[in-house]
């Protein structure tokens, strides 16, 4: 299962953090820092998208200036989580029509809503982009 999801930019500013396991606040600050220091300097071309981290591993993918990182159990299928990250990004892209970092800043609460439609309780919840987008449209109309 996913322990946490972090979206950070290259400077290490966290744009989204979702914790599926309980961590206290200091621990969260520490994890953000550690993950950033671990991921940011990695080579895009010559290194894999997986890093062992504590007793788990981090699967990450970089889109423009943003790192999407998920921390998963060490026996989980890394390749599948890499696809899952991409699915999430595709949904974001479709929802915001060409998503950029600023969308995540100004509409952070929407990003959380999208995340909750794709991942729940640390597992993938829905794999159909269309189902997620329809749902989000409807929720938007309700407000």
């Amino acid at each position, binding site marked *: 299962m996913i322990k946490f999801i972090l979206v950070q930019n290259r400077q290490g500013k*966290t744009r989204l*953090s979702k*914790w*599926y396991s*309980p*961590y*206290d606040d*200091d*621990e969260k*600050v*520490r994890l953000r*820092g*550690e993950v950033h220091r*671990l991921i940011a300097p990695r*080579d895009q071309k*010559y*290194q*894999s*998208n*997986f*890093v*062992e*981290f*504590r*007793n788990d591993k981090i699967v990450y993918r970089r889109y423009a200036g943003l790192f999407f990182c998920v921390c998963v159990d060490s026996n989980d*299928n*890394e*390749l*599948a989580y*890499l*696809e*899952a990250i991409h*699915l999430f990004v595709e949904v974001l892209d479709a929802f915001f029509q060409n998503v950029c970092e600023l969308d995540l*800043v*100004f509409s*952070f*609460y929407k990003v*959380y*809503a999208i995340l*909750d439609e794709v991942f*729940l*309780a640390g*597992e*993938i*919840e*829905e*794999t*159909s982009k*269309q*189902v997620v987008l329809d*749902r989000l449209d*409807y*929720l938007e109309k*309700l*407000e």
Partner: protein
Amino acid sequence: MSGHYNLKALIKAIRSCKTLADERAVIQKESAAVRTSFKEEDSFTRYNNIAKLLYIHMLGYPAHFGQIECLKLVASPRFADKRLGYLGIMLLLDENQEVLTLVTNSLKNDMNHSNMYAVGLALCTFANISSEEMSRDLANEIEKLLGSSNTYIRKKAALCALRIIRRVPDLMDHFITKAKMLIQDRNHGVLLAGITLITEMCEIDEKVCDEFRKATGYLVKHLKNLVTTGYSAEHDVLGITDPFLQVKILRLLRLLGRGDPASSEIMNDILAQVATNTDSTKNVGNSILYETVLTVLEIEADSGLRVMAINILGKFLSNRDNNIRYVALNTLNKVVSIDTNAVQRHRNTILDCLRDGDISIRRRALELSYALVNEGNVRVMIRELLSFLEVADNEFKLGMTTQICLAAERFAPNKRWQIDTVLRVLKLAGNYVREEILAAFIRLTCHTPELQFYTAQRLYAALSNDLSQESLTLAAVWIIGEFGDVLLQGGTIDDGEEVKQVTDTDLIDLLNLVLSSPYTNTLIRQFVLTALSKLSVRFKELSTPQQSHNQDRIAEILAGFSSNLELEIQQRAVEFSNLFGLNDVKLGVLERMPPPEIRATIMGTVSERKPVGSTRTDKDTVVDLIGDDLTSPTNGNLPSSSSGPSTQDLLADIFGGGSSDLGGGGITSPTIQQNGKSTSAAADIMSLFDSTPTPTAPSTSASRSPAISPGLSSGGGAGSLFDLVTPSNSTPQPVVQQQQIQPQPPKSNLQSYTAYEKNGLKITLTPKVAPTQPGLIQILARFQNTTGEIIGGVNFQVAVPKTQQLQMQAMSSSDISAGSTETQQMRIHAPAGAAIRLRMRISYNQSGQNVTDQQDFSGFPADLTGSK
């Protein structure tokens, strides 16, 4: 004091801040404003305030005073309020906080809400943050919602159930029946969530697994549908239908098929189908193939399928994508212990990965390479690993040296190879060698008397070339000290290489150089001091030509350290200096150590697999930041930091071993060694005597044994007569020789045995055993020509049983002129207690006739090699 107009205004204000201090000021002001506003209990501004507060929280500032306000927002009838309220709860609370109990009621209400989206919000919040207590309280609600007709709710409820059984496994029974229904669901989202739930159940409880085995058929059918149906717009990812669902099903199949041949049989076909039909050009396809491989390897699959799985991994290894190679190596690492042969086939590809650009791939390839070493391929593999060691990242070296040496110990085809391997490791990465490995190497050398000269010679040469490798220096210094005599005696190296004869002065020079080298450290100095002291004894035993001068040098060096600031060194220097004066005690204390007990080198598993980052959970952030930076380098420092106790052990060994022997053989041994006409010195004497016109019987044995040995006396009157003459011949010899003869013991154990006597050629063998090396027998063969004419082209060959080893030096001359004697030295290494049996073949030319003879000899006393 009022805050910003709305969230957007706040975000803009914060973003326009130039410095962190400005940002902090803006946020503090805003937080204060929000706090004041909360006190007014205004339900219209609450939404706005919470939105702002959540943004502030996201930037890492405190926002916990908003928790209760979120609860109030959730209770609002407005959907937008509810949504933000639940978001706030998910962000500001977690399962460990007590405020959470206050949410239970709201959740319960909303789970029964008429609006399915409100129900969805409640389920979502529950699934993400529910505590154990909340799980118990709301389990019934979730169970009910699992049966909902709405797919959106069913899917979320399934994941809520997952959360419940993770927190309270006892509640699993509530959901088993419903979960079975989920397997048959047609909606992908529900099916996905349901399979995730069942997977978790099966992982928690093996018995539940049996329950779900009956559903294997359904899962296989689902998988078949996904694989065979063509394009489906809704769930297509790059031409593959719902890879996520496929992966989940494969994972559940793995649990169901594990240890159960019946259900494994049901899934065999579909697994083969997935393995062959999935497109492997993209990550999506590979994620499915990867999961398939894992499943095949874990269930009771037929062998064909297993081979197919390993071959998929083999194909992964040559994939250009780093990620694919990474998972392949990771998986092979898991498989290698189960199915080594299948993995062996991909050995070359794995070795290629040692040169990958990605360090984590190199690390895994290395790990896998260790596992692949066996008796059959040890030479090839170790050669590859050694060549990688030359270029390896420093962080790998410690593990590599350990693994290479352990593998060499386990699988070595012979001792020589093992010693060569360790020597190479010491040369290449002498600063990254564990103490245990060094100890094992020294143990090995002590137990391999036949290679002690070779090892000492190689270490001497290596150390002369490179003083910078700590472990090499330590090993060389120790071996030179302990086996200095062997080194000085000279010998041959099998491969016919030219061996440069080392002199005692060379050894002292080298050790002196080590002491003055910039790489030297306290430990090395301690080793050198001990080695020097041992050498002084070895020199004395050998009576080396320069010995008086060198003894002075040693004393001088020791004295130089007697005021060293390092306590341990000072103590050693002073103690050794004092010991230097006590001649009797010194010989006993510093005599050769008994070979340590042989045992396999044991150490904790050395793994390249280390978790990155700290695993600490304490709250001190500052300490942790420092701690993080320190964690990695400490690995490299291991050998030096742990070297403290070893030196003490070593000292204890030396003194402990010495003192116990003092009363017995300890004192006698050096004196007996005095008569050792050890090769170089003996050869000198021989040549001197040979040059004298009188045909001399070997002077040494005669002069040393007042009672003429039976072998010689039976050799005829001439022989014994000359024997008696020889002492007078030796009188005009230079002083050095006098010194040599002087300390001779009154009684000698040297005895000659006649091994061959025919056609006027008599061969006698004089065995000699040094008590310090009971397994090593030096034999001097003497060829006496008692005829009146020359015996030419003498060729003397000797064979020993397989358990023993033989080294022969060249004969002093292959032509024996009339009445003269020629000699030949040989050495036999035999296990203690073994009887020495020789098979000799001798050929020579006498008066134009070629004679070849073969003869066996076993006339040595049985206790020659010591008692068993």
